[in-house]
């Protein structure tokens, strides 16, 4: 508002000056430019005569100089030379003795030379200024182009940002939808299952004496299936929670974590003959409870798939402790798998064995992969049928922990 109020006349004058400057700069025709020189000198001469008439003496030189300067300014170097020559001639003809003759008296020769020198200096100054002006104008034009481009780019960036914001909002909405989906699964899908199990067990309890062996097996199958579905739902919910839960990252001593898990799982497998081998493991950076889930999944898988081995060998170690990443492996001598199906290992509900052979919901390795990906790491598996399997996961090393160890004596 203030700009509009104070601006118009000021800006208008500046605009029109700039306009005329530009108009003159645009004179390219040689006839016009040299004509401009002749006319300028003629006007200067007229002014000089007029001043002479009113008894002003010795003004012809400055007036002619002004004409030369104007010519240089607006018409360039060539016309300025013409203007200097014309002015010198006129000065010699009209203003130095003998008047109205092109000859020069020795007395006026110094004046004449001084005039020519002066005119040359003015002309060259003007030429220099003109050159500078030209390069400034060029720079300004370039700047203007750049400003234009930048404005264009800014507009594009703004558009992209808006789009990004829209995307983020959409993503958030679909995330919320997913969350409420998981929520109702958790609430509503489990209830009927609980009833199936509950009433089947009540039936089993109350009518077992009336039912034959076959009917009792039917009830047991209903119960087993319902329980399995309950486990599937629980696993799936836990899996979806991993994607949504916030990670609380700290330094995690992997070796301690692995020993803890092995102690827990080993305790449940007391009757089994398992040779555990735990190598040195570094400290890494991540969410301890999530990483524990990774180790639990991999180690209990190893224990499960070596069930038929006497002894079962399970080794947990580190591939190379010197890189920025830690790569941990869990190796067993169990059932293994065909490398042909390696790409199915980490899929949700993907199983490579029959349920009668090895129980499970097929979500353990998917959970492992999801957790490791959330930590910015990678997972892979190697194996051969009946030759055992090795699972690797990588994690970023704890930076300051590594530094502390490096500087320690």
């Amino acid at each position, binding site marked *: 508002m203030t700009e509009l109020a104070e601006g118009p006349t000021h800006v208008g004058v500046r605009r029109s000056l700039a306009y005329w400057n530009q108009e003159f700069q645009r004179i390219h025709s040689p006839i016009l430019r040299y004509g401009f020189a002749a006319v300028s000198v003629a006007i200067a001469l007229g002014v000089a005569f007029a001043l002479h008439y009113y008894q002003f003496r010795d003004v012809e030189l400055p007036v002619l100089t002004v004409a030369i300067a104007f010519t240089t300014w607006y018409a360039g170097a060539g016309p300025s030379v013409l203007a200097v020559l014309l002015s010198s001639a006129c000065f010699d003809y009209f203003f130095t003795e003998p008047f109205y003759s092109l000859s020069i008296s020795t007395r006026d020769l110094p004046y004449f030379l001084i005039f020519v020198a002066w005119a040359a200096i003015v002309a060259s100054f003007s030429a220099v200024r003109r050159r500078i002006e030209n390069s400034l104008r060029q720079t300004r034009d370039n700047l203007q182009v750049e400003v234009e481009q930048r404005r264009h780019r800014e507009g594009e960036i703004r558009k992209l940002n808006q789009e990004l914001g829209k995307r983020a909002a959409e993503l958030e909405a679909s995330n919320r939808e997913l969350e409420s989906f998981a*929520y109702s699964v958790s*609430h509503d899908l*489990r209830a009927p299952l609980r*009833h199936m199990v509950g*009433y089947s067990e009540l039936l089993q309890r109350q009518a077992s004496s009336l039912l034959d062996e076959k009917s009792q097996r039917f009830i047991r199958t209903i119960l087993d299936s319902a329980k399995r579905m309950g486990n599937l739902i629980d696993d799936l919910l836990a899996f979806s929670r991993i994607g949504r839960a916030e990670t609380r990252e700290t330094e995690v001593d992997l070796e301690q974590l692995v020993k803890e898990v092995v102690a827990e799982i080993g305790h449940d497998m007391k009757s089994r003959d398992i040779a555990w081998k735990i190598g040195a493991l570094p400290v890494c950076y991540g969410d301890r409870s999530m990483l524990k889930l990774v180790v639990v999944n991999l180690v209990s898988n190893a224990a499960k798939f070596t069930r038929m081995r006497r002894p079962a060998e399970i080794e947990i170690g580190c591939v190379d402790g010197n890189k920025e990443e830690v790569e941990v492996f869990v190796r067993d001598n169990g059932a293994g798998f065909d490398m042909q199906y390696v790409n199915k290992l980490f899929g949700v509900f993907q199983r490579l064995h029959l349920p009668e052979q090895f129980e499970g919901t097929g979500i353990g390795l998917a959970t492992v992969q999801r957790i490791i990906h959330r930590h910015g790491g990678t997972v892979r598996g190697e194996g051969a049928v009946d030759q055992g399997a090795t699972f690797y996961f990588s994690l970023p090393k704890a930076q300051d922990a590594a530094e502390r160890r490096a500087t320690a004596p």
Partner: protein
Amino acid sequence: MTTLGRILIVEDDPNDVELTLTALTDYNLANEVVVTRDGQQALDYLYCRGEFHARPNENPAVILLDLKLPKIDGLEVLQQVKADGHLKMIPVVVLTSSHEEKDKMRSYNFGVNAYVVKPVDFHEFVNAVKELGVFWAVINEPPPGSVRKPT
């Protein structure tokens, strides 16, 4: 002498009600159980309103509260109970299917006394309900003003 407090069950699902009552009957804990089927009815009972205007004066020894309820949900009931000077002393146990961290957080924020996820396995469910009943209605000393009846 063993005394038994009255248990208020707030549960919309008839099957869950039946299973819970079966579990409580198994352990002779079902003689003083009141069942309400939604949040509105539960609050009516607690405030002696409507159909419950003539209920015995003593408050229940424990409320077993489901979270997903018609009309007024469990969290709202919990919030109202724990915000009321006369009712906030009644122990409230959330008994729900929800494992969700969000539900646990909000329940504890509102001052729930215990949070129990209904197990899918019936034996575990019966055990959980039995232990809840024994602990809250028998072992735990309820706040003054709750019903205590010799068994």
